[in-house]
């Protein structure tokens, strides 16, 4: 099962027949396993890793460190939920260290992101402080290099 997940994580466009050949199962088994993984919510979504910069489509991302005081009974979860329900919020992690939440916010301009942080994020109850880091360049994401194309340097025929 984990083997199939690892394969899909690298390339989710492979067909059940191909995955079956790769793992020594039957296509039927693979289809059933994937359906089960989807149903259980283990596979959350199928997506592509995109270098938006190359499309000329300007997207601004900011990583925001948020310090909060946790709420009795529910800890950080309630505050995190209040934050992650905003569609502007791309990702939310609970982290160890100086801050508690690492929030990734997406917007069309720096101004838009800055206003969102000032007006929405910083004013959430129990949020003590925010520290905003604008993303300037992606070098690697989800295991994919963004900066350098990797070319095959081998000779075409080698014994």
């Amino acid at each position, binding site marked *: 099962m984990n083997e199939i997940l*690892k*394969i899909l994580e690298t*390339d989710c466009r*492979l067909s059940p027949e*191909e995955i079956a*050949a*790769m*793992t*020594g199962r039957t296509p039927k088994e693979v289809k059933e396993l994937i359906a089960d993984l989807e149903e259980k919510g283990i596979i959350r979504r199928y997506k592509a890793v995109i270098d938006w910069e190359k499309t000329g489509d300007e997207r601004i991302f900011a990583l925001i460190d948020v310090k909060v005081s946790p709420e009795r009974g529910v800890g950080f979860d309630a505050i995190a939920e209040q934050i992650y329900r905003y569609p502007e919020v791309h990702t939310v992690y609970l982290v160890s260290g100086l801050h508690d939440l690492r929030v990734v916010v997406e917007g069309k301009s720096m101004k838009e992101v800055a206003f969102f942080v000032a007006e929405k994020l910083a004013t959430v109850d129990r949020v003590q402080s925010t520290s905003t880091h604008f993303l300037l360049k992606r070098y690697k994401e989800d295991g994919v290099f963004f900066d350098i194309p*990797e070319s*095959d*340097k*081998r*000779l*075409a*025929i*080698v*014994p």
Partner: protein
Amino acid sequence: MHISSKIKSVPPSGIRKFFDIVSQMKDVVSLGVGEPDFVTPWRIREACIYSLGKGYTTYTSNYGLLELRRLIAADIEKTYGVEYNPENQLLITVGASEAIMLVMHAILEPGDEVIIPEPCFVAYKPCVIFAGGNPVTVCTDHTSGFLPAPEEIEAAVTPRTRAIFLSYPNNPTGAVMPKETLQAIVDIAVKHNLYIISDDIYDKLIYGETHTCIPSLPGAYQRTVYVNGFSKAYAMTGWRIGFAAANPELLEAMMKVHQYMVMCAPIMAQMAAIEAMKNGEQDMQEMVRQYNHRRGLIVKSLNNMGLECTTPKGAFYAFPSIKSTGLSSEEFAEKLLLEEKVAVVPGNSFGDCGEGYVRCAYATSIQNIQIAMERMSRFVKKISS
């Protein structure tokens, strides 16, 4: 000008012709490459860069860096339970290829014979010839899983036989020889007092089986030269680091040739190999995992298009029979290349009994395998209709 008849007796590589055609073409998907598509893991490259920065640019001991020999000896003992003294039983060479050439020079008298099962890697026979020996081949085909029967090996033994050469997992067939067969061949070597040369370069690339290390078998240790290297397991082909392990007397003889031929393997590559030995296991396992997936996909696709292909148990090659197409290996490979831009290696490059097969390396991405199989399937359909 005079060229040695020994050298002239070795025909030019059959692969050369294809290489020349391929290099003129665009958009070729190559299944013809006998090396990993992975670049050497970054930690290994970084260790080399660091050592260069520190000024490690000198000769090393003829035997190679002692630290590297100690790490290799410890790895062989841990993996196979075979003990070699890193001080006098291990030699770091310029690729496993050099190690094979050294053995031949160290053991052969002019006219001595070395038994080599075929199909096999292209360099074995020339190494024997260059050292003054005569290769004696034993043919195999897919009906026996490309494994020679011990009786066939024994039938090839003559008073001039000096050694039996084995290489499993095998290039080009991917065959892995079962322990019992290996033991039977070791017994033959003992009976006729022969060396065994074992090229274990693909030992880590084995799928769902356990590799048998020949020197671990009863009777084998003293008479076996164990050859291995970093090229395939750690995707380090261009670094040219291999090694040989043998009894101290034979190793000393091999070292003598090595010392006057190359002095030592390059220190920067040895430094990189140290990192591979210390911390390369995880990267290697990940590559093996991916080869295994590709193997499943390529074998399935080849059989689906009507090319009979036994499942290779090791290395990264599929060796399908193309006899059903009525074409020779070279015709098949050349037509496939020109008509569908897929490069494979004709099986007869690996010995006469490789005729009727082609070697498809699956050391390439799943996407490339998909494209190649689609094109190849179209090609087979076209020539069969």
